[in-house]
């Protein structure tokens, strides 16, 4: 009886550990595709295949998001000519909330709107803001939760590395 319980437990643990083992060996996974409206048209992730894409999820009520916008503007200006595209996906329920925020900060990068949060679910967003770096082959190579000015140097070197590849 107890032998059976132990072996079942071991099997369960192994099955839990399996994804971690797979993750270590395989290529980075493809980012979930999206097609979202912007203020002028729409943005399709698949059409950005030759670019390095920084996807950022934000909302107008989120204070660190406000903090992250100037930094993302700098990234867009610094690495844009080398092939970085910043797509900031807004998750506000009401469009006017986002627009008031955007009027104030006037970002130079693409802003898409996803009030239903479908993209955020697909990207498994766990914190606001969350940023994802997608390489030129459409693979998710880096994820960052929240925004902390202390982390920006490490993040920027990761962007630079992908852009220069």
């Amino acid at each position, binding site marked *: 009886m107890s032998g059976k319980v132990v072996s079942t437990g071991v099997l369960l643990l192994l099955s839990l550990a399996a994804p971690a083992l797979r993750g270590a060996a395989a290529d980075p996974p493809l980012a979930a595709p999206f097609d979202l409206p912007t203020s002028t048209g729409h943005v399709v992730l698949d059409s950005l295949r030759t670019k390095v894409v920084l996807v950022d*999820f934000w*909302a107008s*009520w*989120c204070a660190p998001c406000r903090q992250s916008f100037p930094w993302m503007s700098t990234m867009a200006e610094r690495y844009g000519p080398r092939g970085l595209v910043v797509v900031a996906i807004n*998750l*506000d*329920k009401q469009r006017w909330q986002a627009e008031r925020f955007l009027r104030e900060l006037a970002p130079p990068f693409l802003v898409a709107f996803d009030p239903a*949060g479908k993209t*955020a*679910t697909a990207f498994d*967003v*766990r*914190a*606001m803001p*969350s940023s994802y770096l997608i390489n030129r082959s459409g693979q998710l190579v880096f994820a960052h939760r929240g925004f902390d000015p202390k982390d920006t140097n490490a993040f920027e070197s990761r962007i630079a590395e992908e852009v220069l590849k």
Partner: protein
Amino acid sequence: MKRVLRLSLALALPLLAGGCATVRPWDRDLLAEKEMSFNPCPMLHAIDEHVYFSKEASMGGQDASGGGCGCN
């Protein structure tokens, strides 16, 4: 008897678990809405309280300090 207890516990647990919810990070603004607070309208609440304890003729029946002198 013990079996009934165990069975009702087993039934109650999933029911209680139904009360748990994961709030998605981008929905947290909804929790911060005024309507979601415990006392969304303090002034209206104060008036309601006043009417309540006046009718009950007992001051301090709820959260106000004071004795039951009826001098409301």
